């Protein structure tokens, strides 16, 4: 059984004697709720800080590749840029065009944002930094991380804008093509680890990260992840030269910033998922476990940004082609090989 963040927090509080004092006058369930809320709050705060700075990181990485310097004037080296952007978007007028489907329009950003935050609950950030150790963690993760698509489709429908509808249609069409292969690729990992729990998978990689044992699976999963993120080369939902601003065309102000943030949080979560499943999670010598996790995650994020800066966009039917004709058979092959090898050994 893995130590979750809750357990370690209780341990620390008991050592300090705070827990005993609290339990003196509060029923246990209340304390539990309080502590869980506190943990959730801390994780959400840290995550939102990280994702705010991911926007900064992206701009800096892009500008470095494009021979510019990127944000410089807002704070030293543009460090306050995300905050300025946030303030700007917060106070920007929230336009509600006349033709929208109001409730769906309103709910879409939330539907997009919430699942991404929920996924954070199962990702093991470090040896003891696990919020919940679900026994079916990987299933939960794969299921919930594809929910934001619903938000995108809702948003594109609600706006009553043809460009947005096209973006939504594209998204709906593409998701099946890569999502199945992604899940199948993850089965290889599950077979090797023998567990569905994410901390379990990480522990199983103590000696050897699965990227070495499952190179094919890693590749399929990575491509699927890129498509899931909707980033170049697969940014059909927002391909600005074709669909103006894609599914956010009619959104402004705060609602737009929700989409914006959800996308970057997805990026962070994607880095976390890949690290957990294939790069050995928090495993690593010398450094503390959470630092290893952070380093690996940021390497993944950096690679994704690098791809964005250099590659053109593929066409939607080409992704569908890749998804159905290449990724799916390869993923099945991957399972067969993994299963076969495991059976023989």
């Amino acid at each position, binding site marked *: 059984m893995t130590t979750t963040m809750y357990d370690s927090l209780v341990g620390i509080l008991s050592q300090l004697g705070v827990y005993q004092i609290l339990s003196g006058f509060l029923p246990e369930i209340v304390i539990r709720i309080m502590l869980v809320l506190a943990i959730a709050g801390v994780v959400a705060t840290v995550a939102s800080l990280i994702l705010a700075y991911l926007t900064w990181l992206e*701009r800096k990485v892009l*500008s470095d590749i*494009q*021979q*510019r*310097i*990127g*944000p*410089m*004037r*807002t704070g030293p080296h*543009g460090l*306050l*840029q995300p*905050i*300025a*952007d*946030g*303030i*700007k*978007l*917060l*106070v*920007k*007028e*929230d*336009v509600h065009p006349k033709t929208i489907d109001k409730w769906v329009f309103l709910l879409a950003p939330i539907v997009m944002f919430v699942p991404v935050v929920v996924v954070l609950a199962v990702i093991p950030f470090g040896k003891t930094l696990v919020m919940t150790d679900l026994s079916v963690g990987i299933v939960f993760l794969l299921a919930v991380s594809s929910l934001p698509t619903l938000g995108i489709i809702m948003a594109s429908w609600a706006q009553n804008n043809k460009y947005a509808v096209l973006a939504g249609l594209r998204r709906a069409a593409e998701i099946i093509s890569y999502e199945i292969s992604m899940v199948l690729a993850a089965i290889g990992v599950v077979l090797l680890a023998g567990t569905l729990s994410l901390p379990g998978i990480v522990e199983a990689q103590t000696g050897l990260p699965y990227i070495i044992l499952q190179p094919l699976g890693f590749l399929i999963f990575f491509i699927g992840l890129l498509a899931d993120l909707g980033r170049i080369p697969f940014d059909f939902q927002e391909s*600005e030269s074709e669909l*103006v*601003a894609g599914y*956010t*065309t*009619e*959104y*402004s*102000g705060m609602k*737009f910033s929700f989409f914006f943030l959800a996308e970057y949080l997805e990026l962070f979560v994607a880095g976390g998922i890949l690290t957990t499943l294939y790069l050995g999670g928090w495993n690593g010598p010398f450094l503390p476990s959470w630092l290893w996790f952070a380093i690996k995650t940021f390497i993944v994020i950096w690679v994704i940004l690098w791809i964005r800066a250099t590659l053109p966009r593929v066409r939607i039917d080409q992704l569908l082609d890749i998804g159905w004709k290449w990724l799916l058979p390869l993923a099945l092959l991957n399972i067969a090989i993994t299963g076969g090898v495991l059976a023989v050994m």
Partner: protein
Amino acid sequence: MDREYVTDKIRRSMGRRILTDEEVSGWWIIGGIVTFGLLFLLLFLKLIHRRNEHFKRQKMLEEQIIELVGIDLKDKKMLADLKAIHNEGYESGEFKDLSFLRIIPAIITLGLYIEWRLTKDLMIHAERQRRFFSCYLGRELEDTTPQRPTGKYLGLGVVTLGLFGIYWTNLIIKDSNEHFKDQWKLEDLLPEAGMEIDEGVDPDFYKNIILTTVDKFLNWGRTCSVWPMAFGTACCAMEMMATFASRNDMDRYGMIFRNSPRQADVLIVAGTITQKMAPRLRRLYDQMAEPKYVIAMGACAMTGGPFVNSYSVLKGVDKVIPVDIYLPGCPPRPEALLNAFLQLQERMKEERTVTKKFERWILKDRKEVVT
């Protein structure tokens, strides 16, 4: 530079004095004592604000006077002297804004720090200013602002655990009020006197320090994150692209292109707008979310430019949409567009969304606040 123009500017600087040189009442002290020092915090913020505004105005006034003397070029020695005295202001830190964050050391030192700083600043300022105007008017003016022994006061403050600060604050209020009054009298003596009040500025606006601070904060966010709408029609679009490319890199200022007008803050009208295009431009502008700004880039967007005689060209986009910044050139260089953005940022700093909202809400009976 036109002499008339500079004189106008001086008059306008003087006109702003009803906004910047605000008289603070002594009742604040009583209020501070009653609220156990809470109101003092506000008072200090207000004093800092008043100091910044007054010094800023004086700086501008002096600069304009120097400009004027430079145009006349009768007395070269006087010009050099004025410049030297003016530059002292930079050296002593007088022309630099005192940050509101200074309130934190002020709280730690029970207000003594800020009192000391304000007294010192005022003394330096008054002394320098006296010399400046003496030089300009050609006769010795008397020093009206009393010299306060700051060191001694500081000692007294420490000994009385900050209680002396109450009296000291009173002195600051009084001294400053006196200084402003003298300053106004002095300004009326200037040969260029004759105020021109900047219309469209509500004098009450500056009184509300909290709201203006919030506005300042929001404006900071806005100025640092200006997202232009990618809208280029003709030649100017080339230079617009060049401005956002590697050499000039507008991303340094936090500016990135958005393709959807809903998410854009500023519409750069780069190029000729024809009669056929004009309604669409209007539609595009309407689709943008408030607050929105428009830069008319290039001669065509300003007036029609070289095509002004043509049957199909709109003679200036301001016939269709309101324009904030006019940027001449055919086409303007990237540096010029960059400068236009900096000018726009200056303009954005004058926004006061929260203050206006608050005033509409609280003072419903009052007339619409002038924008």
